[in-house]
């Protein structure tokens, strides 16, 4: 299988994929991301709604359908989403490694 061409993820998409390693609804994602980043990243509900729909379309996350009639839809990362997430993590690690190597050499 030819791997899908994969650019850098947006911060919103990265944090949505990260949050959805456990089932969460939209507001849960917003709260978790805000908590993790100490309030630095506050996802706008309009932006989040669009991103969730796109990620569901791409099959990177999926809605959990449960028997209860809860109106709040919960989502979870899929295997495909996990692959993308790990790829992105490797890319970010490379960025951090390169960034640190420069700052370290400047300190000396």
């Amino acid at each position: 299988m030819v791997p899908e061409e994969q650019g850098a993820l947006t911060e919103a998409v990265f944090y949505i994929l990260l949050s959805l390693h456990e089932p969460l609804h939209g507001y849960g994602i917003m709260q978790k991301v805000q908590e993790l980043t100490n309030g630095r990243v506050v996802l706008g509900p309009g932006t989040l709604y669009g991103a969730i729909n796109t990620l569901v379309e791409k099959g990177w996350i999926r809605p959990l359908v449960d028997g209860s009639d809860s109106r709040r839809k919960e989502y979870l990362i899929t295997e495909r989403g996990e692959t993308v997430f790990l790829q992105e993590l490797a890319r970010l690690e490379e960025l951090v490694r390169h960034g640190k190597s420069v700052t370290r050499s400047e300190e000396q």
Partner: protein
Amino acid sequence: MTKSVVKFISNFEKEEQWLNQMAAKGWHCIDYVFGRYLFEKGEPGEYIYRIQLLKNPINHLESTAYLNFLRETGVEVVASYSRWVYLRKKAADGPFDLFSDKESRIAHYKNIIYMFLPFAIMNLAFSLKIFTGQTVPGLIHVAAVVILSIPIARCYKRIRRLKKERLISE
């Protein structure tokens, strides 16, 4: 205590600003019907107001789903007018912006342009009446084109700026 204010603001960002200024003074908008805003007296700065143009008519399934999603996040739908919705959230809940990246802000401005554009084009076509001797009706359509061009140009400028900034950050 309530009061109503009649006002026409064509720039939705100015309108939003004004609603937030009113809210800062303790006057919270609780309804809007064609140019008439209804305010209720409350705690100064209790709410943050936002205005959005929906992609679909307000009763469309997609709009209902979106507005329900907003409600889940603590957003209140105060009023709606055509596809415009007036939203508010308690300021105590923290900052309230509908969009948190340039991509979705661009999409919102585009949506606004797409709403005005057909009317502008239609009026532009009708303004050709000038050349058939119907000067007055033609000029009315010319005036309509000018008026409709203002929000279109404003949104276009915002989009261009955002696209430029997007080259270096999201």
